[in-house]
């Protein structure tokens, strides 16, 4: 079809538009309402239901044509609500009403068109054979799991031979587009799509492939999860793109590697929780009512998956007895981590209060090793929990959690009373140890930042340079450095930010003078020095003659990055690198001096 402007008249309104549109498109642009049933903006039109018929009065072979699929043509004169049109629509609705009296949309439209009851044969089939499901499945999703079977009045939407379909991916697009709600893929899909666990809510609820990652996400906009998106799996669907009024969906967009030259890097890679499954005695992962503290946090969050309702994952009942276990993995040399995760005491205390707010008659128990509430107002907070009897604190470790009579029995020691206790609980909350995020070690190696045996990144000096690293320009903030709570993180982040700003706000960089210098006369440009440089300080310097021709590419040491370790100088065979302050002649002078 050639790109040209066409003129047509709809309901006596002359309109100019571009070729390639349907009458419906043009009518929409004029805000003329045409009823549709088998039409969906995301799905190719079929012109099947005939509810959208309009009357062509001039410009083409006259008569009733479906607005959804009839191309707008030059010189057409169209009436969208003529008597003839109304009669046709009315009859269509009467026929569909006879077929699908249960379909809400049909009843509503029939009422709108003033349909009286006709002596017609009745069926009770919600499917109005609009075929949207078939079209969306075949042409949009590309799976063709459902199709029409049979002809004429016997036509129906079905999987092949009405068998359970292993082709159907259970995407639900058919149900989505169905105007009457007559189709449910669950009825014929043999391998429905796996539900996508909502990561932010620790998998307590599910999410769609298009989702806003979490309530306070910045920017607070949906993202498309490529791994789960039907479009990326089958090449079909694309419904979101079609329906997005802002046209914001772009499937071509890809994750990009963005290169930025920066003057400073702040590492704030956060933490992960210890995998408490390794402690089989607590039954995490085995008993659904044993949850992690983060899961509990989400459950009691008003914006969480349960809208703040607290109930047991196993049966949805309100937990009347709840046991919090602290130090799961923390301060445990064997099988866990030796350090204290620092934040668990405080948030567990908070959890007991939150629990009491949700379940007034509930009873909470906390097993602890000792309470570490160092910090401003921390001790007072814990005191309040204890004095207001938010929870019963038991000092000791739990040896086993096991189910009995629909409850979880928590068996542990109460070292203060010296006896063993058993609590029959509805729910058990574990406070796992904090660990550095996975992959942080690889990052540290890239950044040439040291890390301890647990993977926490090392500061340059624990007292004097707590947010700096040994690599100039790289700073640490938050749990990548050590377990810390939010105020600590914020403080450290602020410190790192100001350090970084301090670094980049100066016009010139001040640094130690003991750095490497390349002698360009003798450098071979083999770049073996680059391989040993821990700071990526070796740059490739292009030498050019006066005509601008490249004559050589030699090593050059970035003064800002070089720390002066001298590994390059040793590696350089032609001895073209000297470390200022440790120059070779200085070294040799020292060596010579021993000969006296």
């Amino acid at each position, binding site marked *: 079809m050639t790109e040209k402007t066409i003129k047509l008249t709809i309901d006596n309104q002359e309109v100019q538009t571009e070729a390639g549109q349907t009458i419906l498109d043009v009518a929409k642009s004029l805000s003329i309402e045409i009823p549709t049933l088998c039409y969906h903006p995301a799905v190719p039109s079929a012109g099947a239901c005939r509810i959208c018929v309009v009357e062509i009065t001039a410009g083409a072979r006259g008569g009733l044509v479906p607005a959804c699929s009839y191309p707008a043509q030059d010189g057409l004169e169209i009436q969208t609500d003529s008597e003839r049109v109304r009669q046709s629509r009315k009859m269509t609705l009467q026929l569909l009403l006879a077929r699908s009296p249960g379909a809400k949309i049909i009843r509503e439209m029939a009422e709108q068109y003033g349909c009286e009851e006709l002596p017609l044969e009745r069926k009770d089939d919600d499917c109005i054979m609009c075929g949207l499901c078939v079209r969306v499945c075949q042409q949009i999703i590309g799976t063709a799991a459902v199709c029409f079977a049979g002809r004429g009045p016997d036509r129906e939407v079905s999987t092949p031979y009405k068998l359970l379909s292993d082709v159907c991916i259970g995407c639900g697009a058919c149900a989505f587009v169905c105007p009457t709600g007559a189709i449910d893929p669950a009825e014929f899909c043999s391998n429905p799509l796996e539900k996508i666990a909502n990561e932010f809510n620790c998998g307590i609820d599910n999410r769609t492939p298009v989702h806003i990652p979490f309530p306070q996400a910045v920017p607070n906009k949906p993202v498309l999860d490529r791994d789960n998106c039907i479009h990326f799996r089958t090449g079909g669907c694309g419904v979101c793109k079609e329906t997005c009024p802002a046209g914001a969906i772009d499937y071509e967009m890809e994750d990009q590697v963005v290169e930025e030259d920066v003057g400073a890097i702040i590492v704030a890679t956060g933490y992960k929780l210890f995998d408490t499954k390794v402690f089989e005695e607590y039954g995490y992962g085995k008993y659904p009512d044993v949850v992690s503290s983060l899961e509990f946090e989400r459950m009691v969050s008003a914006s969480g998956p349960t809208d703040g309702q607290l109930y047991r994952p196993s049966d949805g009942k309100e937990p009347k007895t709840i046991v919090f276990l602290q130090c799961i993995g923390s301060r445990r040399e064997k099988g866990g981590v030796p350090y204290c995760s620092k934040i668990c005491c405080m948030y567990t205390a908070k959890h007991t209060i939150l629990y009491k707010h949700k379940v007034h008659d509930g009873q909470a128990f906390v097993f602890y090793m000792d309470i570490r509430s160092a910090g401003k107002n921390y001790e007072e907070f814990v005191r309040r929990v204890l004095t207001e009897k938010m929870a019963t604190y038991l000092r000791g470790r739990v040896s086993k959690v096991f189910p009995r009579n629909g409850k979880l029995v928590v068996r542990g020691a109460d070292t203060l009373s010296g006896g063993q206790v058993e609590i029959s609980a509805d729910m058990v909350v574990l406070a796992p140890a904090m660990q550095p995020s996975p992959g942080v070690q690889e990052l540290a190696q890239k950044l040439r930042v040291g890390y301890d045996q647990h993977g926490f990144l090392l500061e340059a000096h624990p007292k004097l340079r707590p947010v700096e690293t040994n690599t100039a320009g790289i700073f640490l903030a938050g749990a990548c450095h050590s377990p810390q709570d939010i105020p600590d993180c914020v403080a450290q982040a602020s410190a790192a930010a100001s350090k970084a700003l301090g670094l980049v706000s100066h016009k010139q960089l001040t640094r130690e003078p003991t750095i490497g210098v390349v002698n360009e006369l003798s450098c071979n440009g083999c770049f073996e020095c680059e391989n040993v440089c821990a700071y990526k300080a070796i740059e490739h310097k292009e030498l050019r003659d006066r005509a601008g021709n490249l004559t050589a590419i030699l090593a050059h040491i970035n003064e800002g990055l070089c720390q002066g370790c001298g590994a390059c100088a040793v590696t350089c065979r032609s001895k073209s690198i000297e470390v200022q302050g440790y120059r070779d002649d200085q070294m040799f002078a020292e060596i010579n001096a*021993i*000969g*006296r």
Partner: protein
Amino acid sequence: MGEQKLYQASANWLKSAVDALCAAGVEVLAPTQTDSGKVDLARVTSSEQVIGSYANTAFPLKRLFLPMSEVLLKYEKGENGDVDLEPESAEAKELVILGCRPCDVAALGMLDKVFQWDYSDVAYQQKRDRTTVVSLACTEPSPECFCTSVGGSPQGSEQSDVLVFGNADNTALMQVNTAKGEKFIERLADAVTPAPEGTKLPEPAELERKFNPQKVKGWLDDNFESDFWVENSLGCLGCGTCSYLCPTCHCFDIVDEASWNRGQRRRNWDCCSFSQFTLHASGHNPRPNQAARYRQRLMHKFKYFPERFGLLACVGCGRCLKNCAVGQNLIADLADIESR
């Protein structure tokens, strides 16, 4: 040099010579088999160590007079800041070289020119003075030999104190050229008798003339700039083998080797093939490439040296072509020049 006297030596002359010399406390150097199977001059104490049949020694005589590394003086800084200088004392012991080829001996004449030119080099001259050279005329020159092309001869007596013409039965005819030679003959005692009057020297071995040095020089005079230098030096690695093995090459470098408070001044061989040979402290190098250095080597031997001293700085021993790592052939290059 006085008149040349001829002597006839019996078959045991060599044993007599070694025994007599050793007994007299004279240091004797003679061709021996080295560990790696080559023939080279080494100190001997018995005539059995001496190799009689060889084309030439691996090394020329040069290093006996101009060692690879030679301490010229030592110094030490005393506690009070004074510097103690100690000139290296030369070995004054008499030395006899028993068996070397006329070409190598002829080279000494060229070295003499250099070291006794405007100034007599003490270290050199001392060594020269204490040495008696008994050379052995060539009967079977090697394929690399070309002494005749540079004005020499397989039985040239230039600079020889004694030139020995060996016979198959180990007897020999000896031509004595100098007083040192006479002294040597005396030491042989009964093993030699004056040769009968009219004894003729054997005909020298046949050796093809490979090029004409005059023609070569003629071309060199006109062709300082020529593609020839580039083309023929492409394969040259710039190692010093050719000049270090050359009987006439004599470039040296003087270095001080010192630690905190003492050191020594040394004279070491150097070589015009080295890229650093002419490198200035400024970084400028007047002979910036191998072509220039190669040209220098040829020019020096066949143009500059003759112009200055009237002698070619080449005796045709063939070591440079024999030992070249990449098979570079001086004769071919010179023949090439001649054909231009």
